[in-house]
């Protein structure tokens, strides 16, 4: 039995990554944008694990572990920023948040 080709996982990863990119570029809600970014990170994790299996190497697994820690930390800080901005401006829509430009 041959199992699943690694390329399948990589293509899935690419799909999810691109979906995340779409979310970041078209959505206005900062939280949703942030969720799209999480989607991208998970897509990368999938790639890492696929490569880890392909290479039979534990490093990829560790890397995914680290990415998760980083993602958790980013979520804590990111949501805190979003909450702070909501308190001040009563909005989380990034197109309302454009005092800084040009």
């Amino acid at each position, binding site marked *: 039995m041959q199992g699943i080709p690694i390329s399948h996982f990589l293509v899935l990863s690419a799909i999810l990554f691109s979906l995340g990119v779409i979310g*970041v570029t078209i959505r206005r809600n900062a939280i949703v944008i942030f969720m799209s970014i999480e989607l991208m990170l998970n897509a990368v994790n999938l790639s890492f694990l696929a490569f880890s299996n392909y290479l039979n190497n534990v490093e990829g697994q560790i*890397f995914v572990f680290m990415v998760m820690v980083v993602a958790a930390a980013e979520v804590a800080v990111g949501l805190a920023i979003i909450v702070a901005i909501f308190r001040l401006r009563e909005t989380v829509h990034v197109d309302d948040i454009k005092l800084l430009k040009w």
Partner: protein
Amino acid sequence: MPIAIGTTDLISILPIAIVSLFGVYLLLQSVFAPRMNRILIPYLGILGVGLAVVGNFFLIGMEGTAFEGMVRVDRLTVVLNFLFLITAALSLLITISYHEGEHVEFLEFTPLVLFSTAGMMVMGSAESLMTIFLGLETMSIALYVMAGFRRTNRHSLEAALKYFLLGAFATGFLLYGMALTYGMVGSTNLTQIAQYFTQNALDVPLVALMGLALIIIGFGFKVALVPFHMWTPDVYQGSPLPVTAYMAVGAKAAGFAAILRVISLSAFSIAFQWSEILWVLAVLTMTVGNVVALVQDNIKRMLAYSSIAHAGYILVGVVASNDQTVPSVVFYLIVYLFMNLGAFAVATMVAGQNERRVNIQYYRGLGYTQPLLALAMAVFMFSLAGFPPTAGFIGKFYIFSAALQSGYVWLVILGVINSLISVYYYLNVVVAMYMQQPVDEKKIAPVLPGVGVVILVAVLGIVYLGIFPGTMLSVLR
């Protein structure tokens, strides 16, 4: 497999450990001594940085990797550690003066500076993509928070949000690149990556190239290369001035440290594969940065575009990819440290309470009301513009001559044109200070000791490196 950590391992991360532990200690400060004056905390932070500087001396002369190939200690590591530590100390000094009239809470701020410095040092001494990634994130997450440190100010929070969203977005690309590289090489160790590229130099697999490209993009975001620079002006403008200073110098240096480690050193053998791309990026970065800076009237935003342009100049040194790349880039980073921190220190003094006076019009007549401050600012501007005999000139000269040595004549020509353009907006500040009447009679507060020290160090550094760059250059080689 037992955990085997030797003395060498520990020494190799000595400055990182000192800075981090000091950060934790400062966090617990309120537990140990709840009544201690908060204003002392940044001084304690500087003390911690000082200890780390001492610790860094133990690294001098070491050569090799530690923690089973996670970190590397070599001359580059030591110099970069010094660079990051000095940046942190000077930024903290600026912060102390900034405190007057601002609600920056040192209790949280100082540890964040220390942690993010630790992150930078991890990046500078990384020997694995994993450590680079973790260092980068430690630095960045601290910076996201620091950008929004005036959390009752709209601009500051907007800066934090933009920096955070785009930073996390860029992290995704960086990670994708690391994943592809890992997939091809089978390891994230930089030495092994270098071996892989050397072995496959003649026919590099496409996937590895794409991985490298995505890594370039990820680092390019951090150092603000066009077109990955869009966050820079907004974030620099919105962040509190000391944070902008710290970010402009530290984060950029850390980003270039990573570029040096991964691109210039590990992927050296396939330089022909990426130098063209970086060539284009360098030209774009220099040009966009300088041209847009021409029309800015907010000093922070102007310096932001200027920092983009400088990223372009530094990238010229990376494009050169010869034996002068590392020394010229690091030298430029050191010079950049002094001139930028100095300029931001002056800007902090002029800006006054709540950063009300960040427009260039407030620099009018500074040459008469505050002659020494104005003189220092003029020195910084001339150095940024690359006028001889300031250090900025030597830095540019060195970078350009590295590029010339590799035969990039056109790149150098474009670089020279760009630095000529840049003279205009730097000189604008000088003109405002010396050739225009003050807009209002409001007195600028006398220079506070913290900022005064920063300015003095910066001026001395620029003049010294401008006239006697030899010592530093021989250290770097």
